[in-house]
């Protein structure tokens, strides 16, 4: 019975979409800097995705498709008033102790070879530095290094060529390193 199959397919779709909720919220918050805005964006994305679930091609990457809708909705909503870097999340932090007080032991990067030079950088420093990165560098880095998307997938989400994605990630990491130098001393 096609009706039943359709129903099952939709229920599966809903559940699979919910499994990516954290990824969508993470991207939304790294874009907007405001939890309320991020939640509104995720809600909007979910409603759209559920409304057009028949449009999603099974077998393709659902996470990347949903992330693309988050990014598109964000541009529609905030293009006219977004600022270059993400300040709201970190307002009042400049030159002060982070609001949660001094970093605990497990917040410190443990020297593991890779991060040796940044031994004294703390979790909040990385967040602050990332938030200061212009959006064009911040978003591909978040998608690559926090969401584990491939360059090809990021290129699809951001609707830009792979070469552009790569160079934005590289340049973004160089900027990040510059920003972290001060914290690492």
């Amino acid at each position, binding site marked *: 019975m096609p009706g039943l199959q359709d129903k099952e397919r939709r229920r599966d779709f809903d559940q699979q979409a*919910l499994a990516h909720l*954290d990824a969508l919220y993470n991207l939304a918050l790294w874009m907007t800097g405001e939890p309320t805005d991020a939640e509104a964006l995720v809600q909007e994305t979910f409603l759209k995705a559920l409304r057009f679930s028949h449009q999603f091609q099974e077998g393709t990457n659902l996470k990347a498709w949903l992330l693309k809708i988050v990014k598109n909705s964000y541009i529609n909503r905030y293009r006219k008033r977004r600022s270059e870097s993400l300040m709201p999340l970190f307002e009042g932090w400049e030159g002060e102790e982070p609001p949660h007080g001094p970093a605990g032991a497990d917040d410190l990067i443990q020297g593991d070879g890779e991060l040796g030079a940044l031994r004294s950088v703390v979790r909040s420093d990385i967040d602050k530095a990332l938030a200061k990165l212009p959006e064009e560098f911040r978003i591909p880095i978040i998608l690559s*290094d926090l969401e584990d998307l491939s360059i090809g997938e990021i290129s699809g989400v951001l609707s830009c060529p792979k070469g552009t994605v790569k160079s934005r990630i590289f340049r973004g990491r160089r900027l990040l390193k510059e920003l972290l130098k001060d914290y690492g001393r």
Partner: protein
Amino acid sequence: MDCREAIEYLEDFLEEKLGEGQASALEAHLNLCSGCAAEFHLQKEMKAAVRQMATRHAASPQLRASLRQTEAGRVAARWLQWWVPAAAFLLVLGLGTALYLASPPARPSAPPALVVEVVNDYIRFTQRARQEEAGGSDPQQLIKWFQGRLDFGLDLAVDGRKDFQLVGGDVSYFLDRKVACLLYRKGPHVITLSVLRREGIEVPKGSFLSERGHPLYLAQHRGFTVILWERNDLLHALVSDLDAKELTPLATSIANT
């Protein structure tokens, strides 16, 4: 392997996605070229720093619960949509005409997803403080402005009628694709025309013919008028607070050019 290739393959190397041959060629290059080696170490270090130390924000339990409800609501709505009328039908069969007359009126069917979405976009758009758009209001310049900003060709006579003033246009997004969004005014009324790739989007059935024959689909949602049509694999959606009679001439003139 030269420096350009080394940089090209660096990210795949960091992700350990490079084939053995290419990986050893890259390693050989990194041993010889201090510039690329420094770049490699910086990229590796920063990738690890973000991966291990940056905050991956998690959705709140409240957000998760509210979305579950949306999902549950959808399941319930589908259940109602199918089973309530079915049950009513059986009841009518069983109890005859008297009960049939007393049965509640049929649920109005939900508006098509496409209509809901274009009206939402229209409302969001008209709530913006500034509606004059990036591409300018000169029709020829506007079409040129869109070239290269869209992933499809826009071939429209956008200034089809004198009584509708073209105010501007901009690139916007619909679901997973780009939209050419054009803005018109007629007196105090705002009209948006969205043009997007149809690909996979269900166009509502039931249409009326415009004066010169191109099939148009007309809908009303939340007090707004929506006129949709397809042309060359593109979907066109005209939305306004004007009523259907006033909006149709603009749709006709654009759809038939």
